[in-house]
């Protein structure tokens, strides 16, 4: 009886797609009409990329409970890998797609190799190990020209084709949200969360915690790889500086503000935060620009002290839940 009823109700996923397509058409229309000028289009793209990367970190930290301070390193791996690929194969939609896939795959592979040993560590030890990994990666990127001259080392890599456009970002952003939703609301997702909640108890009920920690980490870093690939082809220039420790904190901030373990939270925070930062850049006079960097950590502290769960505190928009649960919520 229950299953029949549920089957006829529209899937919330369908609603999500309708909302998304509506949003896309609206934004594209605004661009054509010139309401959204190229500057704000760029900001919008950046927001989408931040969203993808932050979703990945939320999977790692918010859902699986593994605190990583090295997210930007995987973002960098994706960016450089895809840029190398499109520069070698020549620009085009096909190579961009290939670049994104390759960037994600390489980031995931690196995550797998580094994750196997270090995910054994707990909370702050894991934090400091991932931070160390991020710094090592930055040093390697700084010296990359010694091995691959095209990567440019500390002076940066240029000559990347500008292939990332709004439809690309939108399509991957939407896919990222839907994949994440389907993953989180599944048996696999519950296994991930059980690791976050109590690793020992998870082991005690048959969850191979090493496996699921690695799984969450690898998928989350794969997200970072996708984001990095889109980023590389948005600005056409890469510098190791963009993938340092501060960048990792940036993403962490979005995840924390939006809410650990909430897709909706990351969605709202990624977009709001990117636009706020850029908005302040435009709105504030040059003399007080530096204050942005002061306000930013203050927001972080205030949230930790007064609303550690973030804006959404483990809740979701209705259309991001798979199906209304039976009984009272």
């Amino acid at each position, binding site marked *: 009886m229950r*299953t029949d009823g549920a089957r006829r109700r529209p899937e919330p*996923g369908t609603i999500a797609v309708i909302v998304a397509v509506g949003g896309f058409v609206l934004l594209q229309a605004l661009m054509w009409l010139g309401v959204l000028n190229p500057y704000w289009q760029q900001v919008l793209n950046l927001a989408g990329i931040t969203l993808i990367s932050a979703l990945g970190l939320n999977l790692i930290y918010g859902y699986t409970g593994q605190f990583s301070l090295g997210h930007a390193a995987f973002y960098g791996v994706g960016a450089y890998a895809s840029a190398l690929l499109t520069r070698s194969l020549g620009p085009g939609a096909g190579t961009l797609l290939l670049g994104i896939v390759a960037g994600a795959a390489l980031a995931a592979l690196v995550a797998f190799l580094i994750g196997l040993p270090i995910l054994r560590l707990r909370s702050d030890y894991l934090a400091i190990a991932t931070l160390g990994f991020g710094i090592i990666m930055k040093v390697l990127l700084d010296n990359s020209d010694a091995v691959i001259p095209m990567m440019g080392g500390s002076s940066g890599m240029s000559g990347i084709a500008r292939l990332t456009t709004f439809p690309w970002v939108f399509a991957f952003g939407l896919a990222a949200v839907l*994949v994440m939703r*389907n*993953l989180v609301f*599944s*048996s*696999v*997702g*519950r*296994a991930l*969360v*059980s690791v976050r*909640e*109590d690793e*020992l*108890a*998870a*082991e*005690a*009920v*048959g*969850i*191979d*915690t090493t496996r699921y920690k690695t*799984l969450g980490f690898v*998928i989350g870093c794969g997200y970072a790889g996708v984001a990095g690939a889109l980023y590389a082809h948005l600005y056409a220039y890469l510098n190791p500086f963009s993938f340092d420790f501060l960048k990792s904190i940036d993403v962490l901030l979005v995840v924390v503000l939006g809410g650990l*373990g909430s897709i909706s939270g990351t969605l709202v925070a990624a977009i709001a935060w990117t636009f706020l930062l850029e908005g302040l850049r435009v709105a504030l006079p040059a003399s007080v620009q530096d204050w942005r960097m002061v306000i930013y950590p203050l927001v972080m502290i205030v949230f930790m002290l007064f609303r550690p769960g973030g804006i959404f505190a*483990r809740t979701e928009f209705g259309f991001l839940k798979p199906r209304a*649960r*039976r*009984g*009272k*919520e």
Partner: protein
Amino acid sequence: MSALLDVTGLLMRFGGLVAVRDFALQVDEHELVGLIGPNGAGKTTVFNAITGMYRPTAGSIRFRGREIAGLKPHRVYQLGVARTFQNIRLFRELTVLDNVRVADHHRGEAGVLHSVLRTPKFRNEERRLADRARELLAVMGLEQRESEYARNLPYGEQRRLEIARALVSDPKLLLLDEPAAGMNPYEVGQLMELIQFVRERFRLTVLLIEHQMRVVMGVCQRVLVMEFGEKIAEGRPEEIRANPKVIEAYLGTSEG
């Protein structure tokens, strides 16, 4: 017929402290055995060794004839040994239903790909997991609570939820670590009835830790007594009650 669980020569050392020494324990299929002893006697440590939480310093632990000492806890669980914890360990930010069905996850086959693509295989499996979990919740009288977060349940219900979680994947052997702790005599009586009931219904073998002696006397067929890491007595409840060593061990403790 060989025992379902056969522990011999178990030694558990932490640095200089010997928590369990030369411990042996046999449990036959469908038995209900009590493990009692004063606080710090080493009872929980025995559970931790059996379930793979600790690797024994020495000794053998055989389950259905197979050596399990040193296996990872999730492997031991998958072989059919489930447990509860002395200090309840639920997934506090998961719902009651999710707490139970996640414990059945290892029997599922739909992995990441099926989940992401929401294939029919995934849907069937989710349905099966939910149905099975609800069955257990009904047995434990928690069917009205399934959407509640585990952390919001009152203490007694949390204890029952932990048992439901331990039962969901059809274990052969259930290890209960002081399930009656913090309950009043009436609740304890109810709990013991419940344990008897699930033992019959699921054809379970149960090993029950308790540090209050009288709780286990009524239900267990056989009782082991530990003190300072060693087994000091073993036998039927009435034998244990009359055993001078046991009386001495419990002398001066209010629980005796």
